[in-house]
């Protein structure tokens, strides 16, 4: 029992105290600057993982000489971390190609919802009317859009505003199903009531 319970915690390298991600969109490319503060390191290294997204190429600018591994699904690197101490990591990379999803390096250190702070800031996003469909949830600020989720996502979704919005379609489908369900129930209830009343009339 105890073994199973403790085994269900993710293998964390520490705790992500804060992450500040700044994304600058410049037409055909995006530059991402990210700063991570990780404390209470429980191992001697922290692994950063970046999701590979189809139709995109990623060029790592900083750190200059990481221990890098790369395959079809992700790019990963590991940095040393002082055991029990805290570490700050700065990563900078550029993304070109399809910019609807901008991948973000995620360390194997979860946040603490009560203490950690995550901030994602995007500049140069022109489709502000589509921001309600963005992921994570963004709000509009003077110089772009900003999001402060409780957990660090593996990418930022920035819809272009063209075509059908999946979010709106899903919400509309739910509203339709609720109305349909209510109508069907009302019809069934009225029929049942009529059936119960007709034998009573016959008897009386």
């Amino acid at each position, binding site marked *: 029992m105890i*073994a*199973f319970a403790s085994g*269900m915690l993710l293998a964390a390298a520490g705790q992500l105290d804060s992450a500040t991600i700044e994304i600058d969109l410049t037409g055909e490319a995006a530059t991402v600057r990210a700063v991570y503060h990780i404390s209470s390191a429980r191992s001697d290294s922290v692994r950063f993982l970046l999701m*590979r*997204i189809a139709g995109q190429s990623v060029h790592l600018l900083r750190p200059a000489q990481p221990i890098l591994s790369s395959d*079809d699904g992700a790019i990963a690197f590991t940095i040393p971390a002082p055991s029990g101490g805290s570490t700050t990591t700065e990563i900078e990379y550029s993304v070109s190609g399809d910019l609807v999803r901008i991948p973000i390096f995620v360390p194997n250190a979860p946040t603490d919802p009560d203490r950690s702070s995550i901030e994602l800031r995007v500049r140069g996003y022109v489709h502000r009317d589509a921001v309600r469909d963005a992921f994570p*949830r963004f709000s509009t600020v003077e110089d772009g859009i900003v999001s402060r989720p409780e957990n660090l996502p*593996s990418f930022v979704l920035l819809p272009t505003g063209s075509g059908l919005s999946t979010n709106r379609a899903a919400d509309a489908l739910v509203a339709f199903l609720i109305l349909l369900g209510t109508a069907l129930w009302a019809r069934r209830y009225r029929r049942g009531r009529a059936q119960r009343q007709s034998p009573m009339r016959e008897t009386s």
Partner: protein
Amino acid sequence: MTGTLAAVLIVYVFVVIGIAVWSAFQTKTEEDFIVAGRSIGPFVGGAVLAATQISAGTVVGTLGRHYFTGVSWWYIWFGVWAGWLTSAFFVAPKLRRFGALTVPDYIATRFGSEKVGALAAILIIVSYSIYLVAQFQASGEIARAVLGIRPLTAMLVIVASTSVYTMLGGVRSSSYIELLQTLLIVFGLLIAVPVLLNHAGGFGQAMRFLDSMDPRLLRWYYGPKELIAFGVAFSLSIAAAPYEMTRYYSMRDEKTVKQAIAIAIGFQFIIGLSVLAIGLLTRVLFPNLASPDQASSIMAFEVLPPLVGALLIVGMVSAIMSTVNSILLVTGASVAHDLYGKFIRPDASQARLVGVNRIAIVVLAVVPVFFALREFGDVQTIVIEQAKFIASFFFVPVVIGLNWRGGTAAGATAGMVGGFFACLVWEFTGQRGFATHGIDAVEVGVVTSLILFLAVSRYTRPVAEENVRIFFGTN
């Protein structure tokens, strides 16, 4: 999102209160309260069975397991369905034909001893109180992640609201509310999957990322020994689960019970696949959550569009409520009908029995909150543990007892007590060496229970023929 969630919650609460009040007017006798006057049909019955099965263990725990361990946990469902089929063919028809009010009623009649029935009632109360801990813990996780409120507050709200609708209308209100809950969960999950897939950029991209993250996520995180142990625990506990068996009693007849089980398996298949997909896709979106139990509420609150997310959160809360409600109906009836009504005040009136049942529901709902606040393990772990105990003490007297004439009262007592303690002792001793020997506590518990049941029955006084005849007919 918070505004939409509040609106959906308010509408849902009014609907639930409406159903509960309507049911209260239909509830006049103990039979109305405990088995809804035996009036439930196959579709509502199927949704009810699915709702009792789909608990916090599924929407929080199982989804969290898929988030954390990937695909292999899904094979556990075969154990769940094997349990349902065993129940459909070897348990439900005889139990429904017998037509008791509670499962200890069956135990007492089958083995010709009210004391054995009382023992079953006590073991049910203990094991299901553990199950309630998991439900309350899950409600705390959802409340913390979604509303930012203290787990204790959420647990007390769940206790209060569930106790009220359970007390008002008994099984009748529960059944119609559970139909609504099953539909909410099924539609909420089905709509969530394509939305999450769209977010993740498609199936192939998501799977490649998961494979890079940890190849075990798409292959074998758990080995065959572990999967068999978990599957056996679920299978044997579901085959003899008192809170599901009680629902058989509320259905019209044996045919309705079998149809309802088939419909429940259909609902579970849809829910199981959706939960698998959502767990994996949430891992793609948020690879490092502090606890797997947070995956479902974070997905619903931070990723899904407002109405879908709100619907799913309400569905998750209602799944917890429905399971809490089912458990409280069983444990409340165990106290009032099987202990109070048979041993303390055998002459108690119907009104008094219903009153005692309602008080018991409140008391039995509050006690597990204390343990839930201490978080002894993740939600799925607690669910598995209670399943192991239920299987260990109940599978043999229920399933074997219903299909073998030779079982005696002493054999049933030995089987229940022996199975319970064998499971308990192995859990704290032999279970630690599981990786080496692969023998799980549930296997030790059930085998011990079986050996004791057969051996003691062989050498003790047989059950009176009139009791045996009820279940097996004449020789």
